[in-house]
């Protein structure tokens, strides 16, 4: 089908609202995407007509809710190209998925002197859990360095990923610069030394056609809220043989097989790693989000974002005086643009744009090591999704002109 931008925009009620008396220009989907009506309606319908707890009730509503919840698991496994549904574990978000791996697989498999390889472009979710694990186990963190254009410097990969490395964990796409990493070389090297690979797909899955089996990921983590779904739903995918060896990390209802006073046995996958009542409405709403993305097509979304990215980069270059971060090779970049006005703090830019109804993200984007690398306090980040238009980019440029007027004196320094 063709990519019908007008129709897509009509599907997202918030896009026709006003912000500070001006039409909303939403350029912060990398933080959290907007939701289509079908997702909102699915959640409302669940609460109005289908609400019950899952996996317990013998009555109709509970059976129905269970069926819908488990249907999303099946949809998710198809969406990412997993072998079966039971390798899809629902969590609260990407952060929880990564912590699950660190606490369950990590504490079992990482020992003193072992090494964990990350990159200098990770956001805090894929950094702090490994710092905590490394401190507990006296393991060592190593970092793949960056080239000036924010792509990974893979020239010393063999020296970084050595026989001591047990895990390589990195983002599929950077939330700061939009860099899409060359994962194949890294995964190939990890295989040579027998290390596992965790791909943080928080920014990747929403923008890029992804197949976890073809790309040979051991672990893959992402959040529903960045891909048109509700907040509070995350996914951990892992290869079945890895999940099979992972002990529970939270104990409670639903994850057990049999319970005595002194001990318990645990349920099979995926229940063993999903303790307690989950975000049922969220997971069911996420199912509607996956359907929406599939109806548009991930490749179509990618193509649309590339067109916007090229348009925006050209206009921002022409604007003059801006510092732009990230590679110009669009095959290695998603729809994220980080930039700075030298001399003006990103927060000041963000406040002025807000007055114009333009929502961008400003600050360190939970990626402080990258800011240190660049020697900056933060960046202004405009990020695109399927519903953004060239007019949104034009509005951004008008807003930036206003920043230039207000901070003209400072900029002349």
């Amino acid at each position: 089908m063709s990519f019908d931008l007008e129709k897509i925009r009509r599907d997202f009620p918030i896009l026709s609202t006003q912000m500070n008396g001006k039409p909303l220009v939403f350029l912060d989907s990398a933080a959290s995407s907007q939701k289509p009506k079908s997702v909102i309606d699915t959640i409302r319908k669940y609460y109005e007509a289908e609400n019950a707890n899952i996996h317990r009730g013998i009555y109709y509503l509970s059976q129905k809710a269970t069926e819908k919840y488990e249907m999303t698991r099946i949809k998710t496994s198809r969406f990412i190209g997993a072998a079966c549904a039971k390798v899809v574990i629902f969590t609260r978000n990407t952060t929880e998925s990564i912590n699950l791996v660190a606490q369950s697989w990590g504490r079992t498999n990482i020992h003193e002197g072992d090494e964990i390889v990350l990159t200098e472009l990770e956001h805090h979710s894929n950094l702090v859990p490994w710092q905590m694990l490394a401190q507990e186990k006296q393991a060592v963190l190593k970092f793949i360095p960056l080239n000036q254009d924010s792509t990974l410097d893979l020239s010393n990969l063999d020296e970084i990923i050595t026989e001591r490395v047990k895990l390589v964990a990195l983002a599929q796409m950077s939330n700061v610069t939009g860099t899409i990493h060359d994962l194949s070389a890294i995964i190939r090297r990890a295989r040579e030394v027998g290390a596992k690979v965790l791909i943080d797909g928080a920014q990747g899955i929403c923008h890029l056609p992804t197949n976890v089996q073809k790309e040979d990921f051991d672990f893959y983590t992402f959040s529903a809220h960045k891909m048109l779904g509700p907040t509070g739903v995350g996914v951990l995918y892992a290869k079945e043989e890895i999940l099979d060896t992972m002990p529970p990390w939270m104990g409670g209802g639903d994850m057990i097989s049999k319970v005595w006073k002194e001990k318990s046995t645990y349920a099979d996958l995926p229940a063993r790693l999903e303790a307690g009542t989950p975000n049922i409405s969220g997971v069911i709403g996420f199912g509607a989000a996956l359907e929406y993305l599939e109806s548009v097509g991930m490749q179509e979304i990618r193509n649309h974002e590339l067109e916007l990215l090229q348009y925006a980069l050209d206009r921002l270059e022409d604007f003059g005086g801006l510092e732009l971060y990230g590679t110009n090779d669009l095959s290695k970049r998603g729809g994220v643009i980080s930039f700075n006005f030298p001399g003006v703090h990103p927060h000041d830019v963000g406040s002025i744009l807000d007055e114009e109804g333009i929502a961008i993200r400003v600050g360190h984007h939970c990626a402080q090591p990258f800011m240190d690398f660049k020697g900056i306090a933060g960046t202004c980040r405009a990020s695109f999704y399927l519903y953004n238009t060239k007019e949104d980019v034009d509005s951004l440029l008008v807003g930036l002109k206003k920043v230039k007027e207000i901070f003209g004196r400072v900029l002349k320094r």
Partner: protein
Amino acid sequence: MSLSDSLYQEVLLDHYQNPRHHGKMEHSDLHQEGVNPLCGDEVELFLKLKGDIISEISFVGKGCSISQASASMLTDSLYGKTISEAKSLLQEFKGMLLEDKAPNFPEEYEDLESMEAVKKIPARIKCATLAWNTLEKAIGK
């Protein structure tokens, strides 16, 4: 008023561009660092005391125009004042921004009054109060 309001702009940008009492101080009597972890704004305050009087004051920092201009206004306002005057000014300033109290500053502090505009941008109140929270820690020691 808002960031694009011209009067506010004038005062704020003047302090941002030409920060008063800027620089580190050797042998200070009071020294305190402050940081807003969510946005990364930093302010470091140095005070020298003669008895109860703030005889020297300076700051260094990095961050947005509001956080740095506010620090500049703070040092400008407190230079030569007593610690108890500093405390009451602190209450007045934080009351204006955090408790929605109408500002009631003596005339010499009119620059501080311009900071009331930040109330219109709730996300930035923590920028404006950073230096003052840092002061609170410094004199509370």
